[in-house]
């Protein structure tokens, strides 16, 4: 049994009736997790119905609220796409968080220090720096696995800690924001800030994220590269025998997923924090793993999953504010949801 049947099932193209069952399963899972979430709300002393109303209201009730959902969804989509591709090839990159921080760092350094007065050029360079840094950080993992077979789950995981420490050092020492009492880096040059859409208050990285979805879908489904990735994921030995250079593919997948995580980091710096700030992410790189898997390693699926998780978190925050229930409930609901989705999904497949 060289190939995980579970992954195989995730990657295999679903048939129509199955799709219907999958939708029903997802609906069932949503319902169940809402029930459990409601139970928690009751324990906390709230009213579940009005809480859920305020969840939707807070997330989607105003353009600004919608914008906030999108701001959160952008990095999740971008990282999720890269991870989906890598996971298809059974390259388990758990290091997106670190790659995000390395991308953010490089892009921030460029956006702070590079004396380029022309905004679009500066932005372009900063983004490029982010992508390259994220990709480079990912490539370490890829090279170690390709050359010596070092388990990528662990190297990528450990490198997260190291990346965050490097980032911390830079914002604490050389590029500290003058006057800040805490860990905060300097603000980027105003020219480097990404323009935002009016009302929604979403930076234009949104369009980049949206453009990446069809691109990723195309790469996965229509190009020989995407096909080779699937070959590698299903049966690495057979892929190698059929002329797929697995070492290069592993490094390539780490470059791509790392580069996309780096891109997400760059956008967080240029579009959200507008400074080097550890607050650009709270585990987005991990949440994106859930996004990639919930989205069934499929580009459109990743988009939907990212929007859903973002809606849940953003709306959850609104709910906790409006209803006065502890925010910690909101932390628990995505996990509960994922558990139920797994169960429902599995049951839908067997009946």
């Amino acid at each position: 049994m060289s190939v995980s049947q579970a992954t195989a099932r995730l990657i295999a193209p679903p048939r129509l009736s199955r799709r219907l069952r999958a939708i029903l399963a997802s609906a069932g899972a949503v319902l169940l997790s809402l029930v459990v979430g409601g139970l928690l709300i009751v324990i906390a002393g709230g009213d579940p119905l009005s809480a859920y109303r305020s969840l939707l209201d807070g997330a989607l009730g105003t353009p600004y609220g919608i914008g906030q959902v999108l701001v959160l969804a952008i990095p999740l989509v971008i990282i999720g796409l890269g991870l989906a591709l890598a996971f298809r090839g059974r390259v388990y990159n758990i290091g997106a968080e670190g790659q995000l921080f390395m991308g953010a760092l490089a892009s921030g350094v460029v956006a702070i220090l590079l004396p380029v007065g022309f905004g679009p050029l500066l932005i372009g360079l900063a983004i490029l720096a982010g992508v390259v840094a994220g990709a480079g950080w990912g490539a370490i993992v890829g090279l170690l696995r390709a050359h010596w077979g070092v388990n990528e789950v662990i190297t990528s995981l450990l490198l997260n800690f190291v990346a965050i420490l490097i980032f911390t050092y830079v914002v604490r020492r050389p590029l500290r924001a003058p006057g800040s009492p805490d860990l905060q880096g300097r603000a980027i040059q105003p020219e480097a800030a990404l323009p935002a859409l009016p009302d929604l208050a979403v930076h234009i990285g949104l369009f980049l994220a949206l453009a990446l979805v069809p691109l990723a879908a195309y790469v996965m489904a229509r190009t020989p590269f995407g096909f080779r990735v699937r070959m590698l994921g299903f049966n690495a030995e057979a892929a190698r025998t059929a002329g797929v250079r697995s070492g290069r593919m592993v490094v390539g997948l780490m470059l791509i997923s790392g580069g996309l995580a780096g891109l997400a980091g760059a956008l967080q710096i240029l579009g959200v924090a507008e400074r080097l700030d550890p607050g650009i992410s709270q585990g987005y790189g991990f949440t994106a793993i859930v996004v990639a898997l919930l989205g069934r390693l499929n580009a459109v699926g990743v988009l939907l999953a990212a929007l859903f998780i973002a809606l849940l978190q953003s709306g959850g925050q609104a709910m906790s504010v409006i209803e006065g229930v502890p925010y910690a409930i909101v932390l628990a609901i995505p996990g509960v949801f994922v558990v139920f989705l797994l169960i429902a999904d599995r049951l839908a497949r067997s009946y």
Partner: protein
Amino acid sequence: GDDDDGGGGGGGQAGGGQDKVKTAIVLPCATSDPWCKQGYDAAKALQKQGAIDLKVTTNAPQDTAGVTRVLAQYAQSGTQLILAHSTWQDAAFAVAKQFPDVDIASYAFELRDNVAILEEPIYQAAYLAGMLAGGLTESNTIGGSAGQDVPLCHAELEAFEDGAKRTNKQVKMIDAYIGDWNDSAKGKQATQAQIDQGADVVIACGGGPATGMAQAIKEANISGFGYVGDMSSQAPKNMVGSVLYNLGPYFKAAVTDVKDDTFRPAKRYEFGLADGGVSLQLNDGYSVKEIPANVMDQMEKVQDQIKSGEFKVPYEAGA
């Protein structure tokens, strides 16, 4: 931990209840954490006095975008004043720009028209603690551990050392930065390492380091100082006292400014030792050893000098 007072966000009567400022406090941790408890208690006190309508968010997200959403949600639902009780400048600015009607106070380092700065001059109290430490130490070695080497902590540890040197020229101080604000186990380990190096009076900066420190001094039966809140319950016999950060004056000033329409242009709120914003609270149960009377006198004298403005504790923020 929910504390919407009565009607909450929905029941905003136009004009009538103007005297109560609609206030929200957003806390980065649970209210049992000393840092968050200090903020929470101060806000609750104002609520009890009838000065404000209060809403509370605990365990707020740590990412800027996440905090922004929470603050925005309050701004949107008619809150007048948001007490953003962490270093949330960027989120505060973003929300302040989007919702120009709301007033925000946070640990910022730049001002905006509707974003005020909260200062935390805890180093002043740490200086006094240091003076006692200088008198208490027998090994002439004291220790300080902090989450990160940031100005807030750096200044606190430096002041502690300066204070100790004032009462005891031979004192040597050991610092450790554990690289994590929340990991109490590491905090405990850091303090233990200092104890092994001979430290017998210690202080900490940050929730994790402070909690860990409290456990370490209890086990080793040495002396220490609590951080931000009154931590004497965590090591009743070993806490000489705690350097307290009292948010009462801060919040009161901000609320009054909002009520009187004087909040803008927003200002820097700083209440030091003289104004009751920080203080050294001694612990009656402390029993590791007798605090030498002359050291106590000296400390109280300096405390008066600070209050009267005669002496200014040097602020050393580090590199």
